[in-house]
């Protein structure tokens, strides 16, 4: 057997030095850009042009920045949804499915209530109904997690598939409440006009963006400043200590998972009041709920930072899409660059969290094991 004369030791940092919190993400992004540059050079594309176009397409043009903020609206919600649960070590990865239910909840209110109320009342009702539907979808996983300790990773993920089937069912079944009754084409039924918001000017950005930002900020405050937030922090640090302190972790688990589900549901309802106005079955191919997990990880589950990571992630996606439009760069290159930047940003986390050193090891004589 070949002997490797060193090993890599990951030593957990007690306290992360402040400077690392700043340096690591920066170096990660630079490393990713460098890695991407090697790839571009190897495939014969201009490094400078590609990056400029990606940046311009995602951030530095009117369409670029408004499209980025538009996409981030949903991703901030699903990101906060994921992070809010993750910070208590509850891994709700079924945000995607809760978003589907948010579509159904929002569309239900928008159709059932008709065109009687002003938008100022109607739109919040849709958003609340979407959030409630999202919370309802996570109720069973939350219950079995808090009572029996059943893995929420599995239960929330599996419910996503059921949610996808539900969306197909309500659109493809003739006579369905959510389907337009006037045509044999499977089209969603449009919500009342008062439940549809207009985008800003010629952009595709909707006022729901500000709702997403306020929600993220408010939850950040809840976690940092309220007793409920304190309970979450204690339970996530040490469930046993929480138990001795008399904190009811079952109830907190239920609460946290319900809020997490509600946030993904809210994201779904935002799609109804924003760009879509009806349940569009193709939404189940977009993966906004799954993207929220990445957004949360990039922000290291910090609810306020998610506003930034959500915008950055969206800009990467919009800019990557734009590469195909403005240059001859194939889609694969754009996707590769997005993947590299995300991977490096996530990988950098290890350096922040652990002190990594390489330890020389001496060659040991082979020790014979007696049977």
């Amino acid at each position: 057997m070949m002997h490797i004369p060193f090993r890599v030791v990951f030593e957990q940092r007690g306290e992360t030095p402040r400077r690392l919190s700043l340096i690591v993400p920066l170096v990660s992004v630079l490393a990713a850009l460098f890695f991407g540059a090697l790839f571009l050079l190897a495939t014969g594309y201009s490094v400078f042009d590609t990056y400029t176009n990606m940046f311009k397409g995602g951030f530095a043009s009117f369409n670029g920045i408004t499209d980025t903020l538009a996409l981030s609206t949903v991703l901030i919600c699903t990101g906060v949804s994921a992070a809010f649960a993750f910070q208590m070590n509850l891994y709700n990865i079924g945000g995607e499915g809760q978003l589907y239910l948010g579509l159904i909840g929002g569309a239900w209110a928008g159709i059932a209530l008709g065109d009687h109320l002003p938008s100022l009342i109607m739109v919040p009702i849709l958003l609340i109904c979407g959030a409630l539907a999202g919370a309802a979808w996570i109720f069973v996983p939350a219950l079995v997690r808090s009572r029996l300790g059943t893995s929420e990773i599995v239960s929330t993920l599996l419910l996503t598939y059921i949610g996808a089937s539900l969306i197909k069912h309500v659109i493809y079944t003739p006579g369905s409440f959510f389907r337009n009754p006037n045509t044999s084409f499977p089209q969603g039924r449009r919500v009342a006009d008062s439940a549809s918001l207009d985008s800003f000017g010629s952009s595709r950005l909707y006022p729901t963006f500000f709702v997403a930002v306020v929600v993220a900020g408010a939850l950040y405050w809840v976690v940092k400043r309220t007793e409920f937030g304190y309970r979450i922090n204690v339970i996530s640090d040490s469930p046993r200590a929480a138990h001795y302190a008399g904190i009811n972790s079952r109830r907190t688990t239920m609460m946290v998972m319900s809020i997490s589900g509600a946030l993904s549901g809210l994201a779904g309802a935002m799609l109804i009041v924003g760009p879509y106005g009806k349940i569009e079955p193709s939404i189940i191919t977009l993966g906004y709920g799954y993207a929220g997990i990445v957004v949360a990880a990039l922000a290291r589950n910090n609810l306020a930072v998610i506003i930034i990571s959500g915008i950055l992630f969206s800009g990467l996606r919009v800019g990557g899409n734009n590469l195909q439009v403005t240059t001859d760069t194939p889609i694969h290159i754009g996707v590769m660059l997005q993947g590299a930047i995300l991977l490096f940003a996530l990988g950098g986390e290890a350096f922040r969290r652990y002190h990594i050193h390489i330890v020389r090891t001496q060659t040991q004589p082979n020790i014979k094991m007696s049977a």
Partner: protein
Amino acid sequence: MRKRHIKSFALATAAVFGLLACGGSDTATEETAAEETAAEETETTDAATDYSALRVAIVYVGVPDDKGWTYQHEQGVLALESELGIEVKRVENVPEGDEAEAIMEGLAAEGYNLIFATSFGYGTPMARVAVRHPDGCFQWATGAKFLLTTDMGGEYATFGDIPANLGTYFGAAEEARYLSGIAAGKASPTGKLGYVAAFPIPEVIRGINAFTLGAQSVNPGATVQVSWTKTWFGPDTEKESAESLLAAGADVLAMHQDTTATGLAADAKGAKWVGYNSDVAEAAPNAWLTAPTWNWGPYYIQTAKAVAGGTCPSDEYYGSMADGMVTLGSFGSSVDADTQAMITEKAAAIIDGSFAPFTGPIMDQDGKEVVAAGVRPELLDLLGMSYFVKGVIGSPKG
């Protein structure tokens, strides 16, 4: 607790790739497609027409090498490029939704003045971009403009409000479906046929009916059992559906799907297979009968020429076998010479208009007459077809 964090990052990383991989859902896995588009290599390009002001882009739902739906469109684009001597911009793997709007907006802003989009889900975003760019010309494949009116769940109060620089294009696949039904009816000793179908929408229902009528024209007692997969691209689901139909006694399977799973399942049981989209006999040569296929080249060429000449077609183009948009693939070895001759003759009758697959009397599943004797239904009735004809087993409601 720290350890679980690491797990979450691994999970998130996996999710990154899952997310990035989920762009192209409409791909197919056939190995090759022998069918070449009818790109006439003749130098008929009239030198008088200047194409320098024409900038064409196409938005693909999948990737051109999928050997299925997008592959067929790519063949059409290649034909367009060689005919007009222009370069066409392709944007691949575009998800159907608000991001598609951003991408088409970007194309219009970049100066592309003829934009094709190859999936039903691009309708709303494309119409929005068309409103903002009245000088551009926008063409929506498989679309139907009336679906954009508020009555139908769209955004425009009346049909007249729909932007005039938006057209749609699709074709009468039912003509080739009918012909493929003849091959299937002849190849089935039991008269029990199966059909692996994606979604219960008019396009698919129309295809099933045409296939059934074709089969019954040579095998009067033939029945067609339908199995819904509720997916365009799902090799496993398609295979399960195919196997369930075979288990129920079907000896020929047809399909409205994007993969060859149905053909492979039929082959494994010694049954026969009618494909779709591309001419992929070699996927299962023993099972292969034939397939309805698409040829988009002539339409792309004619539309680009019209736009270069200053006209944006705003009608709903419905191609057919007569204009070559719809074709029938090659015949498998088990389609005998007599059947081939019969199909060729019927094809000629369809092309010269003396025959139409949907000609009354047509009975629905319950034996009620839905089309009176000698009547050919209006195109709009065909486009909205929501009933199964007599002999189809299954529900048109999914």
